[in-house]
């Protein structure tokens, strides 16, 4: 119990620190969020122009395409995870040693700054999202239960992407190129997970690749939950799959963390 209370107190301190840090750099943080909107708007335009010329694509009409990419811009925000880029730096500079001295796992820092970033940005993202919906006006209906399921799906997707990034962060114990590797995995995720297009648009071979990877549950699945493409009974199956992937990646991260720490100690001492 006291362990838990200590953890809660540390999280409060970390979150407050990160929150004020984010507010201090609000200009750069704001511009970063603009960057995250560029992709969805571009691909929305691509697919809408194709749909206008050829008719519906894999059952997606004009409104479905618009709804998909607007939801994508929201999901992108909640799934962002970037510690794979930072962890290598901590190792190379030895900053990790100082963090290891503190009485709790250094990864809590990543969780806190991740949560703080997402919370701070909501200040301007909510008006921007509202503006985008009012501008594009997709025809879509949203029941309260769907909204709830969406919150669940996007929460799990965020956890999943965070753990994915965490696994790549751990690879920094062995290679200085872990951030390039993470970039490659992100590019693959964009391609087969529902970034460039809904997975329903993918050629059969790529859809096959997608089925063996967690990327669909990180991006495409939560989007399809809120746009209503996933039928109700499949939502639970998708949530279970997300949970399964999360458990798998968490185990992998813990194994790599223990092994990496042994190695790190050997180099540092």
């Amino acid at each position, binding site marked *: 119990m006291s362990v838990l209370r200590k953890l809660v107190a540390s999280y409060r301190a970390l979150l407050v620190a990160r929150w004020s840090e984010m507010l201090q750099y609000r*200009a*750069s943080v704001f*511009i*970063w969020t*603009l*960057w995250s*909107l*560029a*992709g969805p*708007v*571009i691909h929305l*335009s*691509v697919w*809408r*122009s*194709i749909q206008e*010329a*050829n008719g519906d*694509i*894999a059952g997606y009409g004009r409104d479905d395409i618009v709804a998909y990419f607007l939801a994508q811009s929201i999901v992108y925000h909640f799934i962002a995870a970037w510690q794979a880029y930072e962890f290598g730096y901590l190792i190379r500079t030895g900053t990790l040693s100082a963090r290891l001295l503190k009485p709790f796992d250094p990864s809590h820092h990543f969780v806190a700054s991740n949560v703080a970033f997402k919370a701070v940005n909501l200040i301007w993202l909510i008006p921007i999202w509202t503006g985008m919906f009012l501008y594009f006006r997709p025809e879509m209906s949203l029941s309260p239960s769907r909204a709830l399921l969406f919150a669940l799906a996007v929460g799990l997707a965020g956890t999943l992407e965070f753990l994915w990034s965490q696994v790549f962060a751990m690879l920094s114990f062995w290679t200085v*190129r872990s951030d*390039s590797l993470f*970039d*490659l995995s992100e*590019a693959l995720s964009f*391609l087969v997970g529902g970034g*460039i*297009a809904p997975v329903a*648009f*993918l*050629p059969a071979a*790529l859809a096959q690749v997608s089925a063996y990877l967690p990327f669909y549950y990180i991006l495409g699945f939560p989007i399809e939950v809120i746009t209503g493409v996933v039928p109700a009974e499949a939502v639970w199956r998708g949530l279970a799959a997300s949970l399964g992937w999360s458990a798998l990646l968490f185990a992998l991260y813990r194994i790599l963390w223990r092994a990496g720490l042994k190695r790190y100690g050997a180099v540092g001492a």
Partner: protein
Amino acid sequence: MIRHLRLFWLFAKLSIQDDTAYRAEFWSRLLMTFYWFLGVAAGLWVIFSNTETVSGWTLDQVIVLVGTFHIVGGVVRAVLAPNFQRFVEEVQSGTLDFLLTKPASGQFLASFRRIAVPQLVESAMGLGLATIGVVRAAGTFDAAQVAAYLFALACGLVILYSFWLAMITLVFWFVRIENVTQIFWSLFEAARFPLDIYPGWLRALVSYIIPVAVITTFPAQGFVTGHSWAGLAGFAAAAAAALASASLFWRRGVSSYTSASS
């Protein structure tokens, strides 16, 4: 002019000498670029497995466009971005004085001192893509079209240079503007696809206000609808006007610069 060309050549040689010390960086860049190339190809596969054309552009024509996008992107990463970065640092630290007192055009020195050679791999990939696009549709393209494309691309690069020059000149008044480049990159992403697909306001924004997309669409457009003499002349005139006004703006910036110490 000749003197500046010679200086440019000298800078290029020095940059190559510097970068050959970091050969691993070059090879890993090459490998990464190869992966990006695969990614670009897969992206086109996804799009064109659903359609024959994107707003009237065939696959071959879009390949030329994407190639152009990477040619331009590589030039920005190799030439414009690193010099911009260094210039901003110098204004912030006050060492810009050393640059301005050198016996050559300050604008020229600030823009072309350093070339990040490994980044040019991206341009080479873009050139390869554009060539593939042209060759795949062989028979429908002729030498005049290629010449018009190269001319339009050169004009596009001048417009882009002018835009960057105007952007970095702002540093004289607003010292902390590194983030402005991130806005550039966000909008530049739009240049991957034909401009016609975007809603009107976005098309106007990336064509006229922050002209990042028109510089790839316009040259490649020659392979879709053909270039008219009037169109090319207009584009060249726009480039000349952009360069002239950006240079003027730069000179105003320099004259208002009072160094860090005074």
